[in-house]
């Protein structure tokens, strides 16, 4: 029996430590992992818990991230709770198995500490890895700070393992800005946290020898489409459970999570849609702009990147007073508009209000995102709103040195 870990009401934890404590409290049966900056401390901390009797489960240090996720899938098929952690190149290496895990409906929890993808090699935070996972069939939750990294990791087990969901779930936090920044975190006591997560309920358990089961069958053109359709339906239905789990978590802790977080949107004339640790920067910037210059800025932050909250985003943006929206993508778009822009613009096409929407690529490879930069972008949105049309190119880069970089002109309102 694992030892109880004594915790204060308020601890000072960085995001990595917060995530590792959540894994420990969920009493994960198998953690199969491989270290990579900046998520390494999650598995190191877990190793320390194991070495000191705080976990009963197996801790398997494998030879690669591909091996880590492979071990997780094998372990999950054997009927127990499974989790791991990774970042960046490791995430990229395990991508093959991410798709296999979701197609096989293995409720694995993956804590992802977001980091740029090479080349050029870079250890700092951006959202390239998070975006790489967006079609992988996983639920993706996004934590903006250490407290949320802890809370959402606990919630992730409950969501993933719910019998109506049974889908693997990622909890993202930003490399260094969240993972290595010590902040106040209010943890639950071990028994309270475990009670919230609950016992694991095996499905199609390979260790139940009275019910032999084949996992990972092949499907060709006569069956593949039906299986992928069923999987998509499960993902599209998962918000019901996500909302329930968030509600239960609020009742337990008072901390409220929504699939789309929004700030100051009621009277907003312009809005910024943004992810990760930049959300807090954006909120501060918006508050200051409202106070100092009277610009009515609102912030929208998808907490749930997958399934993408199309309906909630649309509800937030379908406001008569809202004129201009900017979508902030912290990932090199690779020859397209940013992914967040595309998602949000897609949701906007069926709104009544049809606000203008533009795209910024920012913060790549850990480039700092300041309040001043956020405000400059917000003011630009105000200029669009005043002019009645987009006054800049639709996609622009912010914070990069060299001549101004932007693409595409609007055809509306000029």
């Amino acid at each position, binding site marked *: 029996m694992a030892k109880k870990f004594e915790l204060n009401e308020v601890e000072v934890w960085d995001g990595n430590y917060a995530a590792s404590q959540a894994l420990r409290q969920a009493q994960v049966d198998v953690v199969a992992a491989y270290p990579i900056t900046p998520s390494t401390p999650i598995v190191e901390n877990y190793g320390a818990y194991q070495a000191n009797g705080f976990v009963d489960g197996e801790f398997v240090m494998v030879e690669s991230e591909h091996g880590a996720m492979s071990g997780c899938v094998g372990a999950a098929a054997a009927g127990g709770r499974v989790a791991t952690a990774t970042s960046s190149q490791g995430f990229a290496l395990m991508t093959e198995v991410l798709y296999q895990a979701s197609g096989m409906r293995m409720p694995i929890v993956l804590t992802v500490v977001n980091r740029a993808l090479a080349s050029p090699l870079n250890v700092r935070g951006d959202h390239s890895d998070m975006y790489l996972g967006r079609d992988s069939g996983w639920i993706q939750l996004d934590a903006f700070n250490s407290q949320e990294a802890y809370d959402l990791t606990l919630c992730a087990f409950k969501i993933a393992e719910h019998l109506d969901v049974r889908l693997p779930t990622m909890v993202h936090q930003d490399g260094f800005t969240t993972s290595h920044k010590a902040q106040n975190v209010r943890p639950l006591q071990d028994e309270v946290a475990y009670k919230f997560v609950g016992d694991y309920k095996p499905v199609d358990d390979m260790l139940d020898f009275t019910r*032999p089961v084949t996992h990972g069958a092949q499907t060709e053109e*006569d069956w593949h489409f039906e*299986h992928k359709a069923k999987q998509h339906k499960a993902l599209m239905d998962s918000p019901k459970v996500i909302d329930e789990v968030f509600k239960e978590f609020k009742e337990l802790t008072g901390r409220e999570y929504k699939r789309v977080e929004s700030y100051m949107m009621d009277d907003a004339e312009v809005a910024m849609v943004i992810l990760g640790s930049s959300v807090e920067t954006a909120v501060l910037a918006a508050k200051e702009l409202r106070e100092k210059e009277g610009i009515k800025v609102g912030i929208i932050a998808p907490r749930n990147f997958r399934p993408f909250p199309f309906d909630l985003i649309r509800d937030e943006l379908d406001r008569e007073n809202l004129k201009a929206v900017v979508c902030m993508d912290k990932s090199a778009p690779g020859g397209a508009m940013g992914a967040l822009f595309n998602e949000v613009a897609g949701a906007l096409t069926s709104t009544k209000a049809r606000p203008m929407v533009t795209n910024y690529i920012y913060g790549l490879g850990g480039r700092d995102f300041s309040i001043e930069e956020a405000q400059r972008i917000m003011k630009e949105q105000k200029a669009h709103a005043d002019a009645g049309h987009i006054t800049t190119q639709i996609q622009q880069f912010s914070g990069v040195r060299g001549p101004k970089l932007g693409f595409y002109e609007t055809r509306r309102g000029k």
Partner: protein
Amino acid sequence: MSKGVLATDKRGVRELGAEKKVGWDEVPQGVVLNSFDDNVDNLSHLRPEERPYSDFNSFTATVASWRVIKPVYNRDICIDCQNCWVWCPDTSIISRDKQMIGIDYDHCKGCGVCVEVCPTNPKSLLMFTEAVDNEEALSGWPEKKKKEKK
């Protein structure tokens, strides 16, 4: 041989690919295939005829159409050495209580390995074209071959 010991209601009725094509709402979650309809205890002590095979088990399907030639088995000559049993790649030699009792024609693909490894003289398994009736094949079984003098 008749289907005999392997006869079940659903045995060998479906060619691969002929199964009912259900919609996305009816396929199993996670593409899992349950081998049996009911729980099984101590499977390695259950003979095939005692098992509750599910429709997902290939045991219930047939690949007989792959075959252009078939082995015919002659009980009168067989010494139950079980060479054919151990080397059959298609689990198609039916043995019970150390006796070879026949060929599973739903699963046999007609490779001919069983005939090659049969040590009796004449062989107790021989290949015939699919069109030949087994009784007919047995009635014309060859005589014992004399060793050729070198």
